[in-house]
């Protein structure tokens, strides 16, 4: 058994080299290159006081609000059986992948005149985008809390409020910490939402970095600001990691199936109310987009969808090709993210290489424009002349997807009762067999969720992808930008139609991922 343990440890050590190399080569090296170029160059550095403070507090407020509004929906989706539950679970992820400029402009048209700019629209948009993280990550965990826990608490005389406080929240803590960290990082580095809904007088570190790097070409200022931002993100990730380890003791989940009930009596009203509120809050902006995509010049129709099959000056390829490109890139990126993130999670859950866990989170906090420019200068020489290679697109997507895979899989792995593993070992199972027969089946469900998120992130084209040059390979979000950048009804209509295509692809991917993960139940 000892020899067995040593060889597993060795294999894990070797395997950890892969994510380390991936992150080192495609994140640390390019970002380091552009930071070094910036810091050694000349340029003025003027740190606007207030920018850092605004970045931090709006992200904190966005996180609190997203948790507050997301948890009720997570509860409903996790505990109750209702018609269309699978659809709601998939639909909630759709806002997450839509290009920010599409959502922000949809918000502008929905909000009353005079209320269109300011902190409230920013917070509302951040909740709209990120509520998926809370609903799916916390909800996924919630669904598996063993009902005996509540029964035991109830037997001991605990009322609903007390059960929530003493049982549910402590057990949910790892998932809450993971979701909160991800929402915070996304809000902290929010770009399009702040530019459009904040108006020209509000800026975050991310928008300042963009301004300095992409507009003023002041790489020195951009590099200094990037370091400040990375420092903040490092601190956040460090704190979140510590929290995560503190609360990782809760291991009371029922992995074998969801524990769903039908709402009864007063509960029905509450559940219906929460679902109704979600339908309005999340559905209204999406419905506005669908409506726009169907309102052709001569009345409602599919004109704009048909136009996606025709050549247009806005793109070098026929628009529907962008959908194929997006699917192909997303598939490759998801594969990369699952391999890299899966290994990190396996190591981290056994408390090895925890630095790698935090390292893997950093790409979420890197400025997209700086990473994009980093790719250009880092990969400019053979044997690594990759700057205009289409390979960089899924690589950049995977960098953003890996933190999700790690967070989702780590909390799933940690939640497995160690006694199960011990029991198997006592019965003579090898370590490899324990992993195969205990860990793997238990995390398969989370694996589906991780794959779904990775795919959605790649479809949504977050981060540096926008700055990766691609010749004849536009993705759907890129195609949407191109159409939005031109006047005329047809261009606006095709942008809306493509947004709906993106929504549909996301829904399909999430439904498939849920089926993949939940398939065991049927067996």
């Amino acid at each position: 058994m000892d020899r067995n343990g040593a060889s597993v440890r060795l294999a894990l050590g070797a395997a950890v080299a892969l994510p380390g190399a991936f992150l080192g080569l495609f994140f640390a090296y390019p970002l380091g290159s552009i930071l070094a170029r910036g810091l050694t160059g000349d340029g003025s550095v003027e740190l606007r006081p207030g920018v850092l403070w605004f970045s931090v507090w709006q992200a904190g407020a966005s996180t609190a609000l997203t948790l507050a509004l997301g948890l009720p929906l997570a509860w409903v989706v996790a505990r109750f059986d209702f018609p269309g539950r699978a659809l709601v679970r998939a639909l909630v992820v759709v806002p997450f992948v839509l290009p920010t400029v599409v959502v922000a402009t949809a918000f502008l048209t929905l909000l009353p005149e005079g209320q269109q700019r300011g902190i409230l629209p920013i917070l509302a948009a951040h909740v709209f985008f990120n509520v998926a993280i809370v609903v799916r990550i916390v909800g996924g965990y919630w669904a598996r809390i063993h009902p005996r826990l509540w029964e035991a608490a109830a037997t001991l005389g605990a009322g609903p409020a007390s059960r929530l406080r003493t049982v549910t929240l402590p057990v949910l803590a790892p998932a809450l910490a993971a979701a909160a960290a991800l929402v915070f990082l996304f809000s902290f580095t929010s770009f399009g939402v702040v530019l459009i809904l904040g108006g020209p007088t509000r800026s975050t570190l991310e928008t300042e970095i963009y301004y300095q790097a992409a507009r003023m070409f002041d790489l020195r200022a951009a590099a200094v600001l990037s370091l400040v931002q990375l420092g903040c993100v490092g601190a956040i990730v460090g704190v979140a990691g510590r929290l995560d380890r503190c609360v990782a003791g809760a291991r009371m989940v029922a992995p074998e199936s969801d524990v769903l009930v039908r709402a009864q009596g007063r509960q029905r009203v509450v559940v219906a109310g929460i679902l109704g509120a979600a339908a309005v809050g999340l559905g209204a902006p999406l419905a506005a987009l669908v409506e726009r995509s169907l309102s052709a010049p001569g009345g409602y129709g599919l004109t704009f969808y048909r136009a996606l099959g025709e050549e247009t000056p806005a793109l070098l390829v026929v628009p529907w090709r962008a959908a194929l490109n997006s699917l192909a890139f997303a598939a490759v990126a998801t594969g990369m993210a699952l391999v890299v993130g899966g290994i990190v999670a396996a190591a981290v859950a056994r408390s090895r290489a925890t630095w790698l866990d935090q390292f893997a989170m950093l790409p979420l906090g890197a400025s997209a424009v700086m990473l994009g420019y980093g790719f250009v200068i880092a990969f400019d020489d053979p044997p690594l002349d990759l700057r205009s290679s289409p390979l960089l697109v899924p690589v950049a997507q995977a960098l953003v997807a890996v933190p999700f895979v790690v967070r989702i899989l780590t909390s799933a792995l940690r939640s497995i009762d160690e006694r199960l593993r011990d029991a198997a070992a006592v019965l003579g199972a090898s370590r490899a067999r324990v992993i195969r027969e205990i860990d793997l089946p238990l995390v398969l469900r989370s694996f589906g969720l991780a794959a779904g998120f990775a795919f959605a992130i790649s479809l949504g084209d977050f981060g540096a992808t926008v700055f990766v040059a691609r010749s004849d390979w536009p993705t759907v979000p890129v195609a949407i930008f191109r159409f939005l950048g031109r006047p005329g009804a047809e261009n606006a209509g095709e942008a809306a139609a493509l947004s709906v295509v993106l929504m549909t692809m996301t829904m399909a991917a999430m439904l498939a991922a849920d089926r993949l993960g939940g398939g065991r139940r049927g067996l």
Partner: protein
Amino acid sequence: MKRLLALAVVVAAGCGGSGDKKATEVVLVTHDSFAISKRVERAFERESGLRLRILQSGDAGEALNRALLTAGNPEGDVFFGVDNNLLSRALDGKLFAPYKPKALDRLDDQFLLDDRHRVTPVDHGEVCLNFDRGWFASHRIAPPRTLLDLTRPRFRKLLVVENPATSTPGVAFMLATVAQFGEQGWRRYWERLRKNDVLVTDGWEEAYTVRFSGAAGSKGRRPVVVSYASSPAAEVFFAGRKLAEAPTGVVDSSCFRQVELAGVLRGAPNEEGARKLVDFMLSPRFQAEVPLSMFVFPVRRGVPLPEVFRKHAIVVQKPLELPPNAIGANRDRWIREWTATVLR
């Protein structure tokens, strides 16, 4: 480990291929607004015997900065899309190698911006105030005719402009006001616009498609916007139905000229191919296509304009202009002053 190997193989394959392609392909590095029809692209490939590969990344400013990062060891052979407002940055960054195409004598001298021929003009477009004809007709107010009109009380809350710190048309419009009112007067003009409740957006997309009332399908409430001289023609061309008159008009006296230039990248792997491509961009075939592919005007004399342009676009006779070196020396300072005047 197998996957690591696979990755290494992919990486090796990805870069191994580029070496032998150099003589048979030419790479155009450009911004997202570049467009070319398949027909014209094939014509170039047939005539030159080269495959044309197009690398697009970001808007004009983002693409230029990306190219500057690789000056001397470029990603491609030709860069297209630097304009007169950013020209000094490209030239200071030693981005281009000189090349003088034969067809230069077919161009008006006003477009030739560099004596050393490091850049070649390809198209021009004018950034102008656009107005919503329907709005002004139904409110029985005469549309604005000059920049100064917009400071009058009857135009209060009617104008939306782009932030010059974040938007290319925003920069051009700020330069228009500098050209019109001079170094002494332009900030006072913006103070008065600010008092008249000008709305500032981050980019053209929000200003035109969301805030401007004249764009197709827009719920915007502002009937005057900073856009292009060709935007009314685009509204007609992309309307999806027949329009007798463009829904929007242009304030002729507010226009600032943007000339878009191309250049052979210094250190281009295929310099000869690059020259062929620059020549092609001045050819009648390519020039005739720029109006409907990029909604700009050809620089070559005698190239016929398409009907939708003749009818609905405004050919600006006397645009506002500033010398490129004055723009280069002062642009960043003007943007800072603009920010202090309008936003703080």
